[in-house]
């Protein structure tokens, strides 16, 4: 199944010790060559990704504010920041629902729409498949920042087309500000995220669908299985792996939604009801100069994503070796 999806790989099935070293004798140069090749990239990743990850954890154990940044002196307070997070009522009433609830809805919406579009595309002729494919490519390529501004403009309270259309239809009497209410705020974020995220799902699943043996589907049709049953009984089991990857990747992306919330009116902290984990961390750090507290929130977000990533890696390892 996975063979239909991947770039043809010479690694598979080849004997483990490779002849890439050239001459048979293994000189020191040959043995250290992979490390020499890796060194620059590893150095960059160590300094700019791993060390910062260690540091964000160290910050989270301190009362780290502007004074500490300037002086560079540590100010350890143990796990007090974490204590404050877990006793803050805001976490349970606002931040967690906005993060977890949103991610669940966004993943469900993205995967459902993406799958439906993939099935539709698979049933189209080459011309219309190309047209639809190009259209969803445009939605995919739209940068998150500009895409978010366009959605804000569409739902703008005073002159947005959404309000004007509703007024023209007589559904509302005066313009509604959709950004002040928490639920309509997140409904717009949801629309934005699904619109931006479903093309990846559709393209990935389409590639898988086209790889499902035609004979299998035809045989099922001959035996009287309807489209609905063919989908659940043949396509889903065949594409289990693809679905797993798409769902996990979407979950990771939808958990750390930032620009789509932060750029919205009130999303940058002035409307506390709209905070999610990422925005909360950023606003506490750079808005309130409470870098230690913000770091603790960021550590929690990272741990959640790490847990999902572990599931992802294990799903992939089940398939084949790295």
């Amino acid at each position, binding site marked *: 199944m996975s063979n239909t*999806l*991947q*770039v043809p*790989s*010479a690694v598979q099935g*080849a004997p483990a010790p490779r002849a890439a070293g*050239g001459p048979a004798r293994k000189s020191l140069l040959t043995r250290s060559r*992979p*490390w020499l*090749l*890796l060194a620059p*990239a*590893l150095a*960059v*990743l160590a300094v*700019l*990704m791993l060390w*910062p*990850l260690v*540091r964000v954890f160290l*910050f989270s154990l301190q009362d780290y504010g502007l004074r500490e940044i300037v002086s560079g002196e540590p100010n350890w307070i143990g796990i007090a920041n974490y204590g404050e997070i877990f006793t803050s009522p805001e976490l349970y009433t606002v931040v967690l629902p906005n993060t977890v609830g949103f991610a669940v809805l966004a993943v469900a919406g993205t995967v459902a729409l993406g799958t439906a*579009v993939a099935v539709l595309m698979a049933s189209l002729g080459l011309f*219309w498949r190309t047209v*639809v494919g*190009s*259209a969803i490519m445009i939605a995919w*390529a*739209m*940068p998150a*920042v*500009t895409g978010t501004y*366009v959605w804000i*403009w*569409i739902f*703008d309270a*005073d*002159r947005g*087309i959404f309000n004007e259309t509703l007024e023209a239809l007589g559904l509302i009497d005066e313009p509604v500000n959709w950004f002040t209410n928490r639920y309509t705020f997140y409904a717009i974020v949801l629309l934005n995220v699904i*619109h931006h995220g479903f093309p*990846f799902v559709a393209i*990935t699943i389409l*590639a898988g669908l086209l790889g499902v043996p035609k004979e299998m589907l035809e*045989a099922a049709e001959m035996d009287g299985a309807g489209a609905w049953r063919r989908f659940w009984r043949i396509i889903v089991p065949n594409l289990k792996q693809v679905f797993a*990857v798409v769902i996990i990747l979407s979950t990771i992306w939808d958990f750390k939604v*930032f*620009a789509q919330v932060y750029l919205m009116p009130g999303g940058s902290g002035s409307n506390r009801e709209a905070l999610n984990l*990422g925005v909360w*961390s*950023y606003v506490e*750090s*750079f808005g309130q100069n409470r*870098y230690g507290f913000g*770091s603790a929130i960021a550590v929690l*977000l*990272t741990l959640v*994503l*790490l847990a999902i990533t572990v599931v*992802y*890696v294990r799903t992939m390892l089940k398939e084949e070796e*790295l």
Partner: protein
Amino acid sequence: MSTDTTNRVDASSRRSTEASGPTVAGLRRSRRTARKTRVAAGKAVLVVVLLAFTLFPAFWMLSSAFDAKAGAGGQQLLPREWSLSNFEYVLTEGGFDVFLRNSAIVALVTVLASALLALLASVAVARFRFTFRTTMLLMILIVQMVPLEALVIPLFVQVRDLQLLNTLLGLMVVYVALSLPFGIWMLRGFVAAVPVELEEAAYIDGASWGRMFRSVLLPLVMPGLVATSVFSFITAWNEFIFAMTLLGGATENYTVAIGLKQFFGEHSNEWGYIMAASTIITIPVMVFFVIVQRRLSSGLVAGAVKG
């Protein structure tokens, strides 16, 4: 197995024709075509709805950008007054000429540096078997999932300590690191796809490893390198959190992604300008995206599914 089913169907249809005569078969056929038309009509409706939903934001952005009266209220689907005035304002007084230049410099440096580093590293993980290789790959995979919100605080402190706040250099260094893991991950598939036999042939002809790399591996990996570079270009061009945090008050160093904030006023937003600027930002990304679309998506899936 497939021939078996075909035979069975042939047999059964022949039997039914014989049993019920030609009129019933004709009726059934017309009913089948009616059903087919209904399915086709349903599909056409779905395609139209899908296209409308997918394209509306991009269409609305363009329509507002070309409308001199955008944001004046009562906008129609098409601009009431076609004009380039929004673009003119954005590129001159709006300062987007400077932001575009900044973004182009940052993106170019990021692309070159990360392509070089990622290529070398991907050759190492795709072509050699060494201790910690799997660990290394897992680390690269996991590092991609780290949320930027967690990196932005320590990197802000780090860049501040190096006195690179408000400079483009600080931003470039960060972007190289951000695009590296994905670049290595994708290029690794492309390198692995080059047959080892070609490398061995080069050695037999007396080439050194360096010569083989330049004359055999590099040309064959080039398409993958282009696709990866486009991806890091898009990362650098679109990135928002770090640009906002590291460039802070230095408006003259803003990249396009944060330059948009200029047009948000205290009480009213200049939507015509915002949409014109958004169009300018979006177009390069879309052009590049369409060019590498196929390779990018197959590479994405290769990285994702293959492991």
